[in-house]
């Protein structure tokens, strides 16, 4: 067993877990945050993407112990039902989902790509390339790409308005 401490969605948490516990296991089974999904469990589908120290990672391919001392943000940490993150709002607006299972990972990856490229700097080709690690078996990606582009442009406008 190992003691793991982290800041999870802005709150300091710690837990005693087996050394082999995956980060997604700690998030879902120990902390009860079920927004983060396990799709393939083989590191390919990206449904489990969370942010560790501000970077998108697959929480099914990281031990909880590796995240000891880190800041972790899951889908629950980016917005709420009454106060959606612009990316969440854009997914709703553009219907960027069908069954919704891949959506948590899509949104966490989308926020990460907007952070890295800068709001307003994403074109369709870049978004599609950036989504290489997130698999959706329903939509054909069209509305997901549209939603991310819209959110990126809208966030650029918000940043401008704030200046």
């Amino acid at each position, binding site marked *: 067993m*190992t003691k793991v401490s982290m800041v999870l969605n802005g709150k300091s948490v710690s837990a005693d877990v*087996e*050394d*082999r516990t*995956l980060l997604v296991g700690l998030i879902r089974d120990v902390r009860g945050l079920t927004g983060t999904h396990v799709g393939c*469990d*083989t*590191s390919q589908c*990206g449904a489990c*993407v969370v942010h*560790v120290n501000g*970077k*998108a*990672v*697959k929480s099914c*391919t*990281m*031990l909880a*112990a*590796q995240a*000891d001392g880190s800041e972790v943000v899951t889908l629950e940490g980016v917005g709420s039902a009454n106060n959606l993150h612009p990316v969440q709002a854009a997914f709703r607006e553009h219907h960027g989902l069908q069954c919704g299972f891949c959506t948590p990972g899509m949104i966490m*990856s989308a926020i*990460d*790509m907007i952070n*890295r490229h800068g709001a307003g700097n994403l074109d369709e080709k870049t978004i599609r390339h*950036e989504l*290489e*690690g*997130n698999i959706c078996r329903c939509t054909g990606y069209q509305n997901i790409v549209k939603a991310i582009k819209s959110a990126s442009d809208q966030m650029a406008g918000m940043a401008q308005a704030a200046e």
Partner: protein
Amino acid sequence: MYETTYHRAGSAAEAADLLAKADDGKILGGGQTLLPTMKQRLAAPSDLVDVTQIAEMKGICADGEGVAIGAATTHAEVASNHLVKSKLPGLASLAGGIGDPAVRHMGTIGGSIANNDPAADYPSALVALGATVVTNKRELSSEDFFTGMFETALEEDEVVQSVKFPGAQKSAYAKYPNPASRYAMAGVFVAQGSDGAVKVAVTGAGQDGVFRMNDMEAALGSNWSADAVSGIAPNADDLLSDLHGSAAYRANLVTVMAKRAVAAAG
């Protein structure tokens, strides 16, 4: 995943010590290959020694005309580093094409080369650029380091600490990713060193992992152009053949990727 014991090493010396003391220990870099392998119970190390928090094993610095990259440096860091982008653009572009963004945030150069997957991208860059692998015990030329499929010259308690890349006049990488796994079915790294010497290294296609294409090197040495390599292919007898592609198909891919790499290098 079978039970294991996680250790976080604070220094390279401590990592080597923990590895030596472990019953069946493994170094844990980003874990992007090791953890999926453990989840499938294809590997069951008694101990994992995490080296990613060791300051002396992270980061990128100038090293003569080239760069030295700490073993625990992630692919995302290599891809976005200004020194790598200006001195060895082919290496930056290779790192930016490994896996997907989330994998690149975790995976490390040391982990990739120590695993020596026959379809990994990095081995081709190390061989074509004539890089040196620095461990806690010695320095090895990359061609001595990679010894075969999933095999390296690393001893049981030896730890990769950094990779030193000399400068190059030209460098570029082109790969044909498997449409499902995104691993290279053939990847070709071309480089013209500071001394003008040309090296061409191929990953993804060989039965024994990375290999050099001497015929292409000679052709490019006298005529650096995509046309110079258009008629040169490796012997298909030495190439991988599986459900994703026959050896003959891969031999042709090597030619096509070499042409693209030379064109990209300019």
